[in-house]
């Protein structure tokens, strides 16, 4: 007899929640008040513009600064013992990107899960390891989601982003919170802050984007300095879309099967993001920074496509995330530095579904999820002797999760978790040789209001890294790293009704990497040339997966091993053409052989789901005076949607091409884009069809000039 509907759908929601909760986790904001605050900010910005006009920009100075930044960034990439890939604001502008994941698609070794549409959840996983291994750092503090362990990147704005970088292992800077060392890799988002400049105290940008499927996105960014001491910025944006796009559905796994052109429904979204930063410079090298960030949205969840059933999904999600943090930094001297963070994060979401099968509740399901985090961190760095640095950091945070539902979660345990980290790191740094090592200690202590809590966990995870410049006069370096890391079971893994397993151990991963970087700045007609290639081997053991206990009952278990062998290649080349024209090119390629290595598994040796063996991207753009045009391409090879790699689970590869052209006139800039130029129908996640060819135009005004 069939799987019990109850359990199956519960499981479905669990999986769904892994996705949705993470990305879109918060809700319940009131749109009217958002509009009001948006209007308020607009007024604020108008009055500030007047102030801004009084200042003249020192273009020479700015340009010089920019060059320095670019050089710094190149060197950072070339010298990294643990691979790092960086996109700065100017490069981001050439990537047909409207959100963080659009940018992350151009990193090598990355797999993006994209459920389609503007409101679809988006997560990033690295080098064949689950998305829970990817830490997301936002201006130096780590984001978290205790329920699902995955961060939905849809909630961050690109408008106030100065730089996005991706580090395998961990960032190379050892003066960081302990939590920075606790992931398999870290996606770092850095927002724009205005440096003190006596000639310029105001900067701002207002922009408006519009695109296919009813996409509208007004945004505003302003930054203002008050003397040497105070710096403020504010960024806010709203997004609206109906998301109704047509797609081609084949009723079978082959494109020879019958098909129909259908339209996505229940795909609308309205969201608002706001962030305020304040910086107080106590002394030149001592500062306090405050940050408050709010994201709220209300959206439809269209769900996956069901053959022959075009009923609209009635699932809605209202979510709301708020965090506020304070950061004290004191670079006392070259010898000694210390910093402290404190942060509060609140995230809640309301999930509703209307379906006649909820008979006992008049066809309505209401779930409410609320999670909170309180977090503190302290880090110290000390120069022991000339090229040798040591750092110590310690973090503590507390999480809780509350779930209320009119149908489910009657026996929910209401878990809380205290997590403590302590990290010791050292770095030996000369022009030719970099050596690094760290040891991270993790403890978790859990409590529950009812039932039994998960046992205490204590983990030690080491890492070592090295980079060496082979020749005195060539920026050619070889590098290697090893890192052991874990992923803690999430509250869903441990406490989700009927399937959570309180005895789950942390999942364990060993990462090995060897590679080289080559940076050349002195080739004629090339202004920049960076090539890097890294081969890696990752071994994941004690993998946390859902297995059937019987036909009605599934459970989370530590079972299974995965071995991933891969190669990441990145090439970036800027070619000077004519007097001032510039051709910028970038290519990356990823090879991932990620095999099920579980002894006795029927799928031993098969490629794990949703992991293409070959994938990559390419970009080329041409800059001519105030004009810039470019082409971007991403491709993914064949993937399998299940553990069984036969034709029923096969998903064809795809290539997606986009172009843009932009120009500026005085303080105005306009950018027009065509995404999916050739109208390719593709899916990133099976049965979540992506929109085909679509258009976007954005107009922005520099308020600081």
């Amino acid at each position, binding site marked *: *007899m*069939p*799987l*019990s*509907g*109850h*359990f*199956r*759908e519960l*499981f*479905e929601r669990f999986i769904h929640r892994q996705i949705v909760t993470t990305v879109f986790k918060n809700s319940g904001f009131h749109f009217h008040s958002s509009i009001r605050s948006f209007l308020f900010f607009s007024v604020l910005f108008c009055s500030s513009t007047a102030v801004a006009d009084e200042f003249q920009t020192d273009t020479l100075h700015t340009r010089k600064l920019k060059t320095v930044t670019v050089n710094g960034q190149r060197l950072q990439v070339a010298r990294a013992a643990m691979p790092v890939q960086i996109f700065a604001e100017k490069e981001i502008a050439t990537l047909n990107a409207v959100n963080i994941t659009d940018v992350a698609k151009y990193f090598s070794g990355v797999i993006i899960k994209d459920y389609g549409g503007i409101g679809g959840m988006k997560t990033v996983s690295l080098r064949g390891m689950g998305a829970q291994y990817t830490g997301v750092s936002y201006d130096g503090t780590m984001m978290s989601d205790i329920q699902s362990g995955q961060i939905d990147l849809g909630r961050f704005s690109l408008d106030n982003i100065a730089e996005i970088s991706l580090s395998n292992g961990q960032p190379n800077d050892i003066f960081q919170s302990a939590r920075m060392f606790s992931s398999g890799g870290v996606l770092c988002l850095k927002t724009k802050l205005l440096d003190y400049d006596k000639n310029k105290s105001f900067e701002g940008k207002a922009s408006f984007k519009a695109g296919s499927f009813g996409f509208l996105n007004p945004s505003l960014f302003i930054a203002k300095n008050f003397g040497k001491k105070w710096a403020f910025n504010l960024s806010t944006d709203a997004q609206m879309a109906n998301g109704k796009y047509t797609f081609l559905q084949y*009723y*079978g*796994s082959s494109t*020879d*099967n*019958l098909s129909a052109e259908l339209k996505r429904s229940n795909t609308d979204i309205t969201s608002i993001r706001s962030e305020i930063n304040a910086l107080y410079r106590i002394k030149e090298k001592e500062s306090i920074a405050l940050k408050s960030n709010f994201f709220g949205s209300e959206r439809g969840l269209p*769900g*996956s*496509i*069901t*053959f*022959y*059933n075009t*009923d609209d999904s*009635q699932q809605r999600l209202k979510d709301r995330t708020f965090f506020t943090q304070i950061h004290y930094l004191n670079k006392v001297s070259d010898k000694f530095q210390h910093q402290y963070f404190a942060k509060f994060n609140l995230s809640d979401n309301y999930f509703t579904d209307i*379906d*006649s*099968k*909820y*008979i*006992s*509740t008049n066809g309505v399901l209401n779930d409410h999820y609320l999670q909170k985090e309180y977090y503190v961190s302290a880090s110290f760095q000390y120069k022991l002797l000339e090229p040798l640095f040591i750092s110590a950091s310690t973090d503590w945070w507390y999480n809780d999760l509350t779930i209320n539902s*009119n*149908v*489910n979660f*009657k*026996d929910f345990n209401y878990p809380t978790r205290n997590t403590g980290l302590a990290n010791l790191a050292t770095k030996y740094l000369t022009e030719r040789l970099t050596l690094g090592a760290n040891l991270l200690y993790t403890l978790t202590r859990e409590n529950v209001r009812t039932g039994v809590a998960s046992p205490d966990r204590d983990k030690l995870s080491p890492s070592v890294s090295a980079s060496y410049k082979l020749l005195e006069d060539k920026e050619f370096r070889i590098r290697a790293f090893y890192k052991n890391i874990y992923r803690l079971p999430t509250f869903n893994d441990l406490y989700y009704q*009927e399937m959570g397993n309180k005895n789950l151990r942390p999942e364990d991963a060993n990462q090995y990497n060897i590679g080289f970087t080559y940076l050349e700045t002195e080739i004629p007609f090339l202004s920049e040339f960076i090539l890097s290639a890294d081969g890696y081997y990752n071994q994941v053991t004690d993998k946390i997966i859902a*297995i*059937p*206990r*019987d*036909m*009605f*009952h599934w*459970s989370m*278990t530590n*079972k299974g091993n995965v071995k991933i062998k891969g190669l990441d290649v990145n090439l970036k080349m800027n070619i000077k053409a004519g007097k001032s024209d510039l051709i910028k090119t970038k290519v990356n390629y990823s090879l991932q052989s990620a095999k099920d290595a579980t002894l006795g598994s*029927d*799928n031993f040796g098969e490629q794990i789901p949703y992991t293409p063996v070959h994938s990559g991207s390419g970009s080329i753009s041409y800059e001519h005076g105030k004009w810039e045009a470019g082409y971007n391409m991403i491709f993914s090879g064949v993937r399998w*949607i*299940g*553990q*069984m790699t*036969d034709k*029923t689970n096969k998903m064809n590869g795809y290539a997606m091409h986009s172009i843009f052209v932009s120009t500026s006139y005085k303080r105005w800039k306009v950018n027009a884009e065509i995404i999916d130029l050739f109208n390719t129908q593709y899916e990133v996640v*099976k*049965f979540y069809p992506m929109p085909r060819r679509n258009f976007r135009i954005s107009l922005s005004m520099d308020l600081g000039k």
Partner: protein
Amino acid sequence: MKTTKIITTLLLTVLSTPIFISCNSKDEASSTTEVSTGVFVLNQGKYNSNNASLTYYDFATSFASADLFLDKNNRGLGDTGQDMIKYGSKIYIAMYKSSLIEVINAQTGVSVKSIPMKNGAGTSSSPRSLTSANGKVYVVLYDGHVSQLDTVSLAVEKTIAVGANPDASVITNNKLYVANTGGMAAVMDSTVSVINLSTFTETKKIKINLNPGTIKADSYGDVYVASKGDYNLIPGKFQRIAAGTDVVTDIAVAVKNFDIIGDNAYISNFDYDATWQAAHKTIAVYDVKNEKLVSANIVTTDIIKTPYCINVDPTTKNIYLGVSDYVNNGKMYCFGQDGALKFTFTTGLNPTKVVFITK
């Protein structure tokens, strides 16, 4: 230069041809499969994966075609195959998430009609199980209803309400018994609705153990129910609803799933080992006439994976046990009445129902 290119192209074409042909021939073998005497297996597939399929195993050729429905109709069955019955010359398949009844010609596998199952609000009513009598097919709907489908017009004639989230159903004595699971309710259901087929009205609800699953009847009018409990504190049970009196009696036999043919109930059961793998997989035989256990286990073959369905051939009395690991293709075991293994074949994902075809 050009010549080299042409030669290369030719060479490649020639080289690739045999591969091409061999690929095609395999596909063609399945698409030319003709239905004769054998079994149809409905493979449930995975929820939200649109991968339900129909395996046809031919007795004469011992060949199992992976998906006869796809081969004959150039499209997949849809999402979550729930139940399948043969009635007259047609086979009716209940598709849960696709919310339709797929009617196919039993001799060709070609679709006759897809009947969307919608409720009053025009949304999915989600079919769960099928029974047939007097020229009608009765469709149990997870939104709490039963529809009567005319087999000539292939249209829904009437729909009545039953309990919460009804699932399995059986007909005996001109009465339809429907197991109400309450699977989507805050508190699960523990009733069986009884429907008089002459009037097509619900006459009563019989209280049984929590969360009833499989429901079957014997030729004496007794109805047997395997319930699942709450998967936690309340255990599942095997119970009998007596003909005429509707008195419910507990039977001290552990059961996960069963089928009744003649005077025997064939009961599939198993336990779990420490790693939650199915262990101690048994097929017990229970005599429904004398109401006693005949054999606690008749199978000595080592069965892999987890038992998923059990159906007995009414003619040969051969026992078909489908197994699954929920990830890979399933497997069907065929045992004789004595429990001796006769043959096995590969099915699709999650084999859930066997229907027997005789030419």
